[in-house]
């Protein structure tokens, strides 16, 4: 049990450390695609005009040989199956599209900066410099790029991505018997194809965070596989002199822009709250596991007590016995840490698709795979586990020391009891006061999380201080005709004193469960209400490129509202300027968090005097209703002052956004990414036809409002899968902790159970009574956990969310949800504790009588 809990703690911790470190590596090496020394990127700033091969060749002809073209396409991967008529058909293998990236490796190899890097990489002393996190240019990378160039039918991907693809292939095989004939994967004969059956390049795995989620190949190979792939950017490799940079900027056509490559800071900043939350949950699970360690050590000591007393009689000092036990725990912890780290790495691999999907859904950030240093991780995890297990072991070992010093357990005197009660109340007051101050005055996310921990700890103190009175209160409601229930409830009171730690673990798990569930429930309710109000049109099209849907919809009878977007810099940060239609129905559809009391809100908006901002903008830059802000005009670029007329809900958007009337935008100077459509079904069918003719896929791009709502809610639910999973695990671990405490206590309550059974009460009844006792303890813990859970969700919504995401939403306290959590928690506890209870109940009564007497 001790080993199991330490392994769970170490595995959970290492999995989160691996996930977080991989994400960090992935952010810092984003947009590098194995290419070393990228100083700038060139991308298109218009949805009307894309980056083209002609742009690329024109720039290279002008002497910019540092430019390397990158083409990208998102595609599903297929495999061939042989149909009965011997014709081969493609079967989809992947569940989500994979990024295929093609690099102009020939140009890269001939660029002066790449040659320098190769020369440098051959010098061992300077190799370390090249391995800096932001630049994965090792000799191996260079060799791979050469290989991509000389052997065009090769592609590189991260081993974990390859592993995922092979697993998905296995799944596809299982669901489709015709695929059974495929042999095991070998590099030279890989089974993947494109949709039209073209075999993919030879896949080579290489462990580098710079690979991200992409399959990287030579650009020619990408065009062979996917002729419609588009150039996504040009990389500027090597340092640019100021003069050359100016020349390059002047040579760029107006639809192209030169930007610094993402250093990953923005992504890292955006997702920091997610990673912090993940770490907080892992630490919560770690702490709950330590509660099990306390109980397991208690159990260990109980079983060894006689032997230890003999040791004392033989003259072995208490100090020696204490350190021998401690040494044993240290050794066990080291072994458990090693096993936990190995399991944690595997767990991280398993969880990485979900984490990647969550980050993509929540922050629109793509996360790849990282490189894990097992030794570093082992040192980190075993260090934390050692500190934790020594702390957790100290309490029972200290108790043992006390037990070995005196012949019998001396109950606490009244004065001692009063002293401890006062200490508990004092702790409650101190924890609550500190938490209150932090929550009201601090802004750092880690401080807010610390305050949240203090709130939960204060709840533990309150529970411990009030357990007896609460149990006594409940006892009053048990009718006299159930004498055994009355006795059991009174025994619960005695047990509560002996299961303090386990009850606290359960309280923590229940509080976080209620808090997280209410938060997610409120968020869900707010999101549904917001989406239902905002999605007031019949259909939506997400399409950033050409052709323009408004043009296609002409003569079809479909009304098209296009949403134009422009990215601007505001107070040094990137902000979205978004167009918003102003007709009556769209005014009704706007979901306000807060709005100006001015009755002319919409007329001021339409006239361009005022703007609407999302919560992210208002909270992020600390603006309120009626404040004035200075923004550039979306089409003219001239700075003007606008009044904030309303703050709107904009869940899921990581960016600050300003809404302005659509007539202030010009299509040629903005990106169009979303079209809202209104029209009869027959008219929509006409548009569908036109979209097909224009090479678009209406089945995929044209979404009915209900489908979009369902899709959004699915993304929402997927986002919270990890939270739900960790919630259940924490509850399970807390229940296990309680089960451990029960095993320890089984010997304590054995005489009483024996006595009741000797009075003719059946074994089943005795088992049910034992179950009742523990469920009563849990029920009381749940009662105390409820206000703290509500408080926790309030803190999560109005403090943590405010700081982490810059949005809040109304807290919905649903009694049904709370009852559901009560039922689930009690069920989980019942399932876990039923085993030791049944085991005790199955023992023949005569054994108990002999044991007791």
């Amino acid at each position: 049990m001790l080993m199991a809990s330490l392994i769970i703690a170490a595995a959970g911790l290492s999995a989160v450390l691996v996930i977080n470190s991989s994400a960090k590596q992935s952010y810092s090496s984003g947009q590098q695609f194995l290419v070393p020394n990228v100083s700038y990127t060139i991308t298109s700033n218009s949805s009307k005009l894309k980056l083209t091969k002609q742009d690329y060749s024109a720039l290279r002809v002008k002497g910019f040989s540092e430019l390397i073209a990158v083409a990208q396409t998102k595609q599903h991967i297929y495999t061939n199956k042989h149909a009965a008529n011997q014709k081969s058909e493609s079967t989809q293998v992947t569940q989500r599209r994979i990024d295929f990236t093609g690099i102009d490796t020939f140009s890269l190899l001939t660029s002066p900066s790449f040659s320098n890097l190769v020369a440098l990489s051959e010098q061992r002393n300077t190799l370390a410099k090249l391995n800096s996190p932001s630049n994965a240019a090792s000799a191996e990378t260079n060799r791979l790029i050469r290989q991509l160039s000389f052997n065009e039918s090769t592609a590189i991907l991260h081993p974990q991505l390859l592993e995922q693809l092979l697993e998905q292939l296995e799944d596809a095989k299982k669901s489709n018997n015709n695929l059974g004939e495929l042999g095991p994967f070998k590099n030279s004969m890989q089974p993947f194809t494109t949709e039209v059956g073209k075999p993919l390049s030879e896949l080579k795995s290489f462990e580098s965070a710079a690979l991200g989620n992409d399959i990287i190949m030579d650009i020619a190979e990408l065009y062979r596989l996917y002729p419609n792939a588009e150039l996504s950017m040009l990389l500027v490799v090597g340092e640019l002199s100021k003069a050359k940079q100016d020349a390059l900027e002047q040579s760029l056509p107006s639809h192209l822009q030169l930007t610094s490559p993402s250093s990953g800071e923005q992504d890292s900043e955006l997702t920091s709250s997610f990673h912090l939350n993940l770490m907080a949950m892992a630490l919560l699970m770690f702490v709950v596991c330590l509660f099990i360690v306390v109980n397991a050590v208690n159990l260990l000591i109980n079983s060894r007590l006689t032997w230890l007393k003999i040791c004392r009689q033989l003259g072995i000092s208490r100090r020696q016995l204490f350190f021998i036990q401690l040494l044993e725990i240290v050794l066990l912890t080291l072994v458990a840490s090693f096993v936990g780290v190995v399991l944690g790495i595997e767990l991280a691999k398993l969880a990485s698709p979900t984490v990647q999907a969550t980050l993509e859904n929540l922050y629109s950030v793509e996360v790849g795979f990282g490189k894990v240093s097992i030794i570093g991780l082992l040192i980190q995890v075993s260090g934390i586990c050692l500190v934790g297990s020594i702390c957790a072991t100290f309490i029972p070992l200290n108790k043992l020391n006390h037990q070995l010093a005196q012949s019998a357990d001396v109950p606490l005197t009244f004065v001692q009891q009063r002293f401890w009660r006062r200490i508990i109340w004092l702790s409650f007051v101190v924890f609550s006061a500190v938490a209150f101050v932090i929550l009201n005055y601090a802004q750092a996310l880690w401080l807010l999380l610390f305050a949240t921990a203090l709130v939960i700890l204060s709840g533990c103190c309150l529970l411990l201080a009030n357990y007896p009175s609460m149990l006594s209160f409940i006892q009053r409601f048990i009718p006299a005709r159930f004498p055994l229930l009355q006795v059991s409830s009174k025994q619960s009171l005695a047990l509560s004193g002996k299961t303090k730690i386990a009850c606290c673990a359960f309280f923590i798990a229940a509080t976080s469960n209620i808090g997280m569930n209410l938060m997610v429930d409120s968020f869900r309710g707010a999101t549904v209400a917001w989406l239902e109000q905002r999605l007031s049109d019949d259909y939506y099209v997400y399409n950033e490129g050409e052709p323009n849907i408004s043009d296609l919809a002409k003569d079809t009878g479909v009304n098209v509202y296009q949403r134009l977007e422009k990215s601007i810099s505001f107070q040094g940060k990137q902000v979205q300027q978004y167009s918003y239609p102003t007709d009556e129905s769209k005014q009704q559809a706007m979901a306000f968090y807060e709005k100006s009391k001015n009755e002319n809100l919409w007329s001021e908006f339409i006239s361009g005097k005022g703007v609407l901002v999302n919560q992210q903008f208002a909270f992020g830059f600390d603006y309120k209703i009626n404040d004035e802000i200075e923004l550039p005009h979306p089409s003219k670029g001239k700075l003007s002052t606008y009044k904030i007329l309303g703050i709107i809900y904009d869940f899921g958007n990581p960016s600050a956004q300003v809404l302005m009337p659509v007539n202030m935008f010009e299509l040629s100077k903005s990106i169009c990414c979303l079209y809202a459509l209104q029209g009869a079904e027959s008219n929509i069918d006409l548009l569908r036809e036109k979209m097909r003719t224009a090479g678009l896929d209406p089945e995929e791009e044209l979404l009915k409002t209900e489908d979009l709502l369902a899709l959004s809610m699915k993304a929402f639910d997927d986002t919270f899968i990890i939270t739900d999973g960790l919630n259940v695990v924490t509850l399970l671990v807390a229940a296990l902790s309680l089960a451990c405490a029960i095993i320890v206590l089984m010997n304590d309550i054995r005489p009483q159970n024996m006595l009741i059974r000797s009075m003719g009460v059946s074994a089943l009844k005795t088992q049910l009574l034992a179950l009742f006792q523990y469920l009563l303890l849990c029920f009381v813990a749940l009662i105390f956990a409820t206000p703290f859970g509500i408080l926790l969700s309030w803190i999560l919504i109005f403090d943590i969310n405010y700081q982490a995401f810059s949005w809040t939403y109304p807290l919905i306290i649903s009694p049904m949800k709370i009852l559901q959590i009560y039922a689930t928690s009690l069920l989980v506890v019942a399932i876990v504790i039923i085993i030791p209870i049944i085991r005790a109940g199955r023992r023949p009564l005569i054994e108990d009588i002999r044991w007791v007497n």
Partner: protein
Amino acid sequence: MLVLKNLQKSYTDAGEKRTILKNVNLGINAGDSISIQGASGSGKSTLLHLLAALDKPDSGEILLTHSNQSGSDEEITKFTEKQADQYRQFQVGLIFQKFNLIDCITVMDNIMLPAKITGKVQHEYIQELLNALGIQDHINKLPNQLSGGEQQRVAIARGLSHQPPLLLADEPTGNLDSKNSDLVSQLLVDTCKQLNTALVMVTHSEKVALLTQQQWYLDDGKLTQI
């Protein structure tokens, strides 16, 4: 009320079969008081456990005879678990060497528990019992506030509170000093006599054994009357 016929019971100890009761025969009538003595490990407690239907013999019978005409004799050794529970609930009271009182409830609640379980709460009878055992002043105390002798008197009251026809006491004075031992054993025998309850008491003490009507000795698996 109980008839033991050719009871045989053996245990396997370290791979060796040891017969602990050999053809034990005994008759217990209502109101009888019987003491069973013997060396440690002679099988006294085992015999008591067989009488309480806590254990089953290898062979032989324990017949529960009913005084009224309507009830037929019942074979205890063939009881199902449910029947054994019912038997212990209504026919038997048990007293242990280690008192085994429930710490978290009052003396009164401890005493009343079997009566409440069987639904036979008679306050007058309980009051008589308390008076007879001299614990009427302690009813609101918790067990750990009482001396050993007082705790065993509470245990006796508890064993008798549901008015069982048979009280089985396993070394009831084993944990008491001689003064308390004399007092408690005398109270036990007197109270059973007063209530017409049959008493089977296992004891090491000859002095205690002499208080009962019949004294039996268990040696080498054989039960003989002294």
